[in-house]
């Protein structure tokens, strides 16, 4: 990896297209396409640009001193089932060089749409014809006193993961704040590291933004049976130093009056789009950078994708930030098509997640909590930890969640995004919602 970084830094000063000018205010380098952010969205965009424009110069900027990697793979690094290289998005030697994609480490500190340049932290200025912002999100630090101490970490970057690996030794007392989607992924990794884990979630159940109370509480009792304590409807009020204890240096205060000694506190309280560098850029911004169905921002030369983009949703008029893998890579492809002159329209982001909680697998799609005027089909088998709930609007499926099923779960996406008319299969599904694959074959593939 060090070699990779050295190599990209050696490119400094090289001009990819056109003459360069090192004066401040003009660009040190200029590219046809600049993709800022080297996560899954940025990498997909850069590769799609190359597919459709064999010659245009491409710069892929990564914000961290790493080869492009996927945060999604970090839990598997924590568990030890992969090495760091296993988190990388591409594995072939010279992948980016072969595609003539210049990779470089650099964080954007300013974007100037008028001069079509961006400024990197450290002072380099880079020119672009088309810019794609894929600068991702950062973990939220809730306003709780005492979170700025040693032994308190997010689990977001590879660097975070390295520190967690150091601290989360077998038997260590670890507190996890948040049992949302990211929290639950980390939960499994920490539990498999055999720490003594306590999970604190302020919602009334686990993954409250992905699963309903039946499913969320199924996960909770599953965890309890596996020896992981999950406190729901509980808040951390303060974190104090724990003097006199060399191992458990932290004391985590809960709103129920309890105090938990901890060696490590992992904070997974959600993420927020990285927007700070856009002050003064004049782009339309809300929760994320607002983009249209071409992933284009309010500036025609600038696109935004992935966790930083607030883009059309599959259902409804409101634009949404969906910080999920499938949306990130779909954004990347569609933005790149449009940037390279191939008009492509985005059908909107459908929320979807899959979670493995100590072996119990759950999924959710779209309007899993139902829509106004809609109806549903539910089947629950608590004994065997199996659950499925389908949400309909009129004659089609608009949302779904399930626990304990892995086979053919993708057709739930197919049925929803295909807006497949279910006809008399809706009644059959209401009698037995497990028949989603049969319904799909009968309704979508005839």
């Amino acid at each position, binding site marked *: 990896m060090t070699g990779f970084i050295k190599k990209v830094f050696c490119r400094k000063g090289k001009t990819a297209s056109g003459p360069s000018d090192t004066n401040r205010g003009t660009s040190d380098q200029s590219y046809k396409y600049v993709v800022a952010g080297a996560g899954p969205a940025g990498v997909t965009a850069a590769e799609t640009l190359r597919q459709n424009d064999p010659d245009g110069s491409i710069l892929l900027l990564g914000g961290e001193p790493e080869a492009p990697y996927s945060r999604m*793979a970090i839990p598997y690094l924590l568990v030890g089932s992969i090495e760091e290289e296993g988190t990388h998005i591409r594995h072939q030697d010279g992948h980016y060089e072969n595609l003539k994609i210049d990779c470089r480490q650099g964080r954007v500190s300013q974007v100037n749409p008028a001069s079509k340049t961006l400024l990197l932290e450290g002072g380099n200025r880079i020119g672009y014809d088309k810019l794609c912002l894929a600068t991702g999100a950062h973990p939220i630090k809730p306003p709780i006193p005492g979170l700025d101490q040693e032994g308190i970490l997010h689990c977001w970057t590879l660097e975070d993961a390295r520190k967690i690996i150091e601290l989360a030794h077998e038997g260590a007392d670890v507190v996890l704040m948040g049992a949302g989607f990211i929290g639950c992924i980390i939960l499994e990794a920490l539990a498999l590291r055999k720490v003594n884990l306590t999970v604190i979630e302020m919602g009334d159940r686990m993954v409250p933004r992905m699963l309903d109370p039946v499913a969320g509480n199924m996960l909770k009792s599953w965890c309890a049976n596996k020896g992981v304590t999950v406190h729901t409807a509980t808040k951390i009020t303060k974190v104090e130093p724990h003097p006199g204890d060399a191992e458990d240096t932290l004391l985590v205060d809960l709103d129920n009056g309890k105090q938990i000694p901890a060696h490590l506190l992992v904070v997974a309280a959600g993420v927020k789009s990285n927007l700070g560098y856009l002050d003064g850029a004049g782009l339309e911004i809300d929760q994320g950078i607002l983009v249209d169905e071409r992933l284009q921002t309010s500036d025609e030369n600038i696109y935004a994708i992935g966790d930083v983009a607030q883009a059309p949703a599959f259902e409804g008029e409101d634009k949404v930030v969906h910080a999920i893998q499938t949306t990130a890579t779909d954004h990347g492809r569609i933005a790149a098509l449009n940037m390279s002159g191939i008009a492509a*329209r985005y*059908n909107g982001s459908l929320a979807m997640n899959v979670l493995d909680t100590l072996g119990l697998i759950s999924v959710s799609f779209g309007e899993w909590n139902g829509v106004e005027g809609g109806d549903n089909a539910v089947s629950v088998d608590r004994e065997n930890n199996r659950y499925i709930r389908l949400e309909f609007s009129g004659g089609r499926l608009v949302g779904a969640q399930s626990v304990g099923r892995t086979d053919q779960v993708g057709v739930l996406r197919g049925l929803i*995004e295909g807006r497949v008319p279910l006809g008399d299969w809706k009644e059959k599904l209401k009698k037995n919602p497990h028949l989603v694959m049969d319904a799909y074959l009968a309704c979508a593939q005839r």
Partner: protein
Amino acid sequence: MQKTLNIIPEKCTGCAQCEIACSIEHVGMFSPSKSRIKVFKFPDEGRFVAYTCTQCSEAWCQRACPTGAISANAETGAKEVCEPTCVGCKVCTIACPFGTINYVSERGKVTKCDLCGGDPACVKACPTGAITFIDADATGYDRMKAWAAQTGGGAQPEA
């Protein structure tokens, strides 16, 4: 010319020989539940549908994979899972709108049809000719692609 599986439900009798052949080929076991091709039965209509991956050109599973573990076999066009690279995150299983890439918990990996490297076992096992392996252009593949184009992440070029 790359070839593709062509499945004709009208010729399928539901015998499940394809499932058996697939499981023997891939896991060395007589175990339909481990098959990558599945026969769905519609008893009300007396209809059977053998169903597996269509190896779509803009593959959802491939694009969604966070570690680049799914790639196209240059010879067969099949989208193949590189097991050592697959971390088992299952994102592809929710991304594929056809439901044809699935998680196998015993191995902690996902699995899908790989066209048996160009000589599909299910085709050889099918006694009624319901599953054949023919030139890609001559199948209902275009129909599948058209359907695929309706679904999401998939926005298609408008031109």
